[in-house]
C-alpha cells in the first residue's frame, strides 16, 4: 500500500495552522470588539463627564435665567461634542444648540429604544442626561441632555473594529509567517541530521558536521559511529571474503595441477618401468620435461596471481573501473575502435578495482589484437549480477580449448600470451567469486563475459 507522505515541516505547520489562525483571528476579533466597546463606552463616559462638569456652572446660569450665556455654553458644548445639547427646565427648552424656534417650547425627548450602560439609546442618538443643580441647593427642575448621534459613534466603533481587525490580522499573518520561519529554523538541525544520515549512507567521502542541538548531535554521532563500525565490519567482511576466495583459488590451482602432476607421475613411472619397451619409456621420458614446464608455468602464473590476490572486496562502482580500462587500452591501440555500451549511474559490485582493471585490460588487449576493426565493451545489470562483455570481430577461438586456456595450459600463438592472460583473468574473476564465460560473439569473433555478484 502506497503511503502519501508529507514533510515534517508541513506536518508541523499543518498541525499548528488551525490553532494559529483561530487564536490570531479570535484575538483580533476580541481585541477589536474590546476597543470598539471601549470607544463607545468612552464616548458615553465623556458625555457623562461633560454633564457632570457642566452641571454646577449651568445651575448658576439657570438660577440667573441667563439664557444668552446658556446658549453660548450649549452651542460651545455642541460644537465640541458634535452632539445636540438641550437644557430643559420645567419640561420646556431653556437652551439648545438647535433651532431657536425650540426655545420655550415643550421638550420632545427622542423615543428611547433601549437602555444600556445606564444610558438611553434612541434609534439615532445616545442620550445622556443629568439634572442641573448645585449640591446643597434646591432643585431647579432643570436637566441637561447631550444627544450624541449614534451613527458616528457606531461608525467610529466599526472603524475601530475594522482597523484593529485588519491590523490584528496583519499581525497574525506576520506571526504566522514568523512561526513558519521558526518551524523551519527549528527543523533545520533535523534536516541537517537527515542529510547527514543520508550522506553517511550514500557517500563514501561524506564529512558530517556537528549539530548544535544536543539530542540531534547524539543521534548524528551515533549514526556516524555506526557508519564507521559498519565500514570496519565491511572491511573485515571483505577481507574474510577475499581470504575465502583466495582459499578457493588455491583449491582450483590444486585441482588444475592434479591432472598434469598425475600425468607427470604416470609418465615418470612409465619411463622408469623396465617392463615397458624402450620406445614407450623414451616417449614417456621425453614428455616429462614438457609436462613439468607446463606445471611450472601453471604454478608461476598461479604464484603471480596469488601474489596479487585481492586484499578486500569493497562495493564500489565497477563502471569507473571499465571506463579507466578502456581509456588505458585506447591510448595504446589507436588503430582499432573500442566502443562501449555503459548505462548511466553507478553499478555497485564488490571488487578490487586494480585487479579487475587488470583482468579487463587483458581481455581488451586480446580483443584489440584479435579484432579486425571493432572491440565492443558493454555492461548489463540483472537483479543480483553484473555482466561485463568484451566482444571483437576477429577470428574467434576454438571453444574446445577454452578450458585449457583458462587453466593456463593452452599454447598461445602469440608468445604464449593469450593463454597466460586468459588464465590470469580467469583467476582474478574467480578470486572475486565470479565467472569468466566464453561465447562466440555476434560480431563474429570472441565474446568474453565476466559475471560478478551485485550488492
Amino acid at each position, binding site marked *: 500500500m502506497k503511503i502519501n507522505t508529507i514533510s515534517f515541516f508541513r506536518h508541523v505547520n499543518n498541525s499548528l495552522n488551525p490553532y494559529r489562525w483561530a487564536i490570531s483571528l479570535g484575538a483580533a476579533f476580541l481585541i477589536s470588539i474590546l476597543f470598539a466597546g471601549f470607544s463607545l463606552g468612552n464616548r458615553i463616559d465623556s458625555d457623562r463627564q461633560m454633564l457632570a462638569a457642566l452641571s454646577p456652572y449651568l445651575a448658576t446660569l439657570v438660577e440667573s435665567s441667563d439664557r444668552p450665556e446658556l446658549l453660548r455654553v450649549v452651542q460651545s458644548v455642541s460644537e465640541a461634542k458634535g452632539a445636540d445639547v438641550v437644557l430643559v427646565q420645567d419640561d420646556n427648552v431653556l437652551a439648545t444648540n438647535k433651532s*431657536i424656534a425650540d*426655545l420655550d417650547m415643550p421638550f420632545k425627548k427622542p423615543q428611547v429604544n433601549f437602555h444600556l450602560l445606564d444610558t438611553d439609546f434612541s434609534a439615532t442618538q445616545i442620550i445622556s442626561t443629568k439634572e442641573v443643580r448645585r449640591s446643597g441647593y434646591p432643585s431647579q427642575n432643570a436637566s441637561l441632555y447631550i444627544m450624541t448621534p449614534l451613527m458616528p459613534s457606531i461608525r467610529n466603533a466599526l472603524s475601530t473594529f475594522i482597523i484593529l481587525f485588519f491590523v490584528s490580522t496583519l499581525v497574525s499573518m506576520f506571526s504566522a509567517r514568523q512561526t513558519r520561519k521558526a518551524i523551519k529554523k527549528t527543523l533545520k538541525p533535523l534536516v541537517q541530521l537527515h542529510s547527514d544520515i543520508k550522506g553517511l549512507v550514500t557517500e563514501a567521502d561524506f564529512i558530517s558536521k556537528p549539530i548544535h542541538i544536543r539530542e540531534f548531535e547524539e543521534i548524528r554521532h551515533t549514526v556516524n559511529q555506526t557508519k564507521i563500525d559498519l565500514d570496519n565490519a565491511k572491511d573485515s567482511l571483505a577481507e574474510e571474503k577475499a581470504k575465502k576466495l583466495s582459499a578457493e583459488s588455491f583449491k582450483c590451482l590444486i585441482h588444475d595441477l592434479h591432472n598434469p602432476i598425475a600425468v607427470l607421475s604416470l609418465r615418470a613411472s612409465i619411463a622408469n618401468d623396465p617392463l615397458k619397451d624402450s620406445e614407450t619409456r623414451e616417449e614417456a621420458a621425453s614428455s616429462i620435461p614438457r609436462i613439468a614446464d607446463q606445471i611450472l608455468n601453471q604454478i608461476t602464473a598461479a604464484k603471480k596471481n596469488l601474489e596479487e590476490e585481492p586484499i578486500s572486496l569493497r562495493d564500489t562502482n565497477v563502471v569507473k573501473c571499465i571506463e579507466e580500462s578502456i581509456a588505458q587500452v585506447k591510448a595504446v591501440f589507436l588503430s582499432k575502435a573500442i566502443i562501449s555500451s555503459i548505462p548511466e549511474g553507478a553499478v555497485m559490485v564488490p571488487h578490487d578495482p586494480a585487479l579487475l582493471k587488470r583482468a579487463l585490460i587483458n581481455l581488451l588487449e586480446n580483443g584489440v589484437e584479435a579484432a579486425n576493426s571493432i572491440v565492443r565493451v558493454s555492461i548489463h545489470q540483472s537483479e543480483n549480477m553484473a555482466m561485463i562483455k568484451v566482444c571483437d570481430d576477429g577470428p574467434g577461438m576454438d571453444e574446445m580449448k577454452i578450458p585449457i586456456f583458462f587453466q593456463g595450459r593452452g599454447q598461445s600463438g602469440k608468445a604464449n600470451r593469450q593463454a597466460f592472460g586468459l588464465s590470469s583473468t580467469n583467476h582474478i574473476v574467480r578470486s572475486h567469486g565470479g565467472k569468466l564465460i566464453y561465447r562466440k560473439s555476434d560480431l563474429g569473433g570472441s565474446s568474453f563475459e565476466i559475471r560478478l555478484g551485485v550488492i
Partner: protein
Amino acid sequence: MGLWKRNFIILVIGFLLQGTLYAEGLPPSSRVYVKSLFSLPLSLDPIQMDDGASLVVGNLIYDGLLKFSPTLKLESAIAESWSTSKDGRTLTFKLRKNAKFHDGTIIKADDVVASLLRALSPESKVRKYFDCILGADEKSGMADNSPVGLTALDEHTLQIILKYPFPPFLSVLAGATAKILPKKYLNNPEFFKNPIGSGAFKYSGINAEKNEMTVITFPEYYGNIPKLSKMILKVSSEVDAIKLASTGEVQDLANWPLTSNSKAFLVGKKISSPVASTWIIGINTTKKPFNDLNTRQMFKASIDTEGFRLKFYPDALPASGYIPHGLPGSQVKFDLKIKVIKPPQNKISIVIPKELASAQDMKLFVESDLRKKGWNIEVVVMPWDKLMDGYAKKEHQAFLVSMNMDYPDAEFLLKNFESSNPDNFSGLKNKKLDLLLRKSRMQQDRKKRESLYREALKLTEESAVTVNLFHPRANYWVASCVEGFEPNILSDVYIDYTKVSLNSDCMEKK
C-alpha cells in the same frame, strides 16, 4: 462642421449667461424682497432711534463695531478683534481695513470716535447706554469737550476707557444704536435725509406716495454680500400686511408679532422664536392719579393680564415680571402686597397703537375689564408715530408698548426707571433704585450683579410703574420662497438679512 462649431459657441455662451444668471440668483427682479413695517422709521439717526421701525432700518444700513449672533453671541462687525484690560475698564478695538462707508471711504477709528461721541451728546436718546464711558457727564452730556474715554490710537485702532468696568458694554456696542457714521458728514444737518451708512444695505430713498422705503445691496460690504439686490420696506397696518402677504406682494411680516394661529400662516412659512421683549402698560407717575403709589399698585393688580394674554397672544409666555424670560432678572417673582382702596374717579387714558390688528378688541377688553372693577378708564387707539411722540414728551398717563431690549441685560430695561434718565417714561424718582443701578454697573461679579438687579426689580415692581402683560413669542411669517431667515432671540431688529434669499426656482413657479 462650421454649423456645429457656431452652434457650440452659442451653446457655450448660453451656458455662461445662464451661469451668471444663476450666480446672481435669477432674475434681478426676483431678488427684490418686500418687508412689511408697521411704520416708516421715525428717525434715521441712530442716536434718535427708540422705535422698532427705526431700529430695523438702522440695522440694515448701519453697522456697529460688534454684532449679535442669532443666539446673542458677540461677533465682530466693523471691529475685526477686540480685547479688554484686566481691570475691565479699557477696551481696545482693531478695525477691519476693508470696511467702507457707502460712499466708498474706508472706516477709520476717528469715525468711530465721532459716532460714539454723538451718542453721548445731550440730544442723544440713547445716551444712557453710553454714559459709562469715561468723561461722559451724567447731566449735560459731556464732562468737557474732549472726553478721554474715546481715543483713536491709530487709523484702525480704537480705545474706549470706561468709568467703571461694565461687562454689558460690549453688548451695548453690538446694539442697534451703537452705529458707526462717517465723521466728515456729521455736521451736515441734511445728512440723515440721505444717510451714508456702513451696513450691508445702502439707503436708496423713501417713496412717500407708496409709503415705502428702499434699501439696496452695498456691493463693497466687508462681510457677506447680501443675496438680495433690494429690500422694500413697505408700511402698512397689520391687517393690510397680512393681505399683502397672502397675495405674494410682501415676503416678510417679521415686524408684526403674529399669534401662531394667525390666518397669515395659511400660506408661507412660520418661524417661531422667543424674543427679549415685554409688553407692558407703562404708567406715568407724573400724571394724576398715578402720582399715587397705592393707586398705581391697585391699577397694576386690577388688570387681567393673563386674560389679556390668552385672548390676544395665547402662545406668548405669561409675564412673571418686567424682564423677559430667559434673561437675568426674569426669575424674580414678587407678590405685591397692596392696600385695597376704591379706585379713584379720575379719568385714566391708556393709549394703544392703532396699527395692531386687534387694537379695537384690546380696547374693548381692557375697558370692560377695568370698568367692571370700578376704574374710570378709556382706551385710546392712536397711530404709532403720535403715540411715540406723546411717549417722548411723557404726555400719556398710560400706554401699551412693547419693551424690546437693545442688549441682553436687565440693566437695559431697569435703566428706564433711573431718575437721571431723560428717557424715564415713568417719571419715577427712587434714590434707592438709582443707587442699586449704579452699584450694579460697577459690579463685575455676575452673581453679585444679579442680586443687585433682584433688589432693583423688586423696587420697580413695588413702584408699580409697569403692568407686565406678557413676554411675546415671535411667530415670524415669511413667504414660502424665502430662505436663510433666522430669527434673533433679542428681537426682529437683529435679523441678519445678508443671509436671506429668495429661492429662484420657487419664485419662477410663483
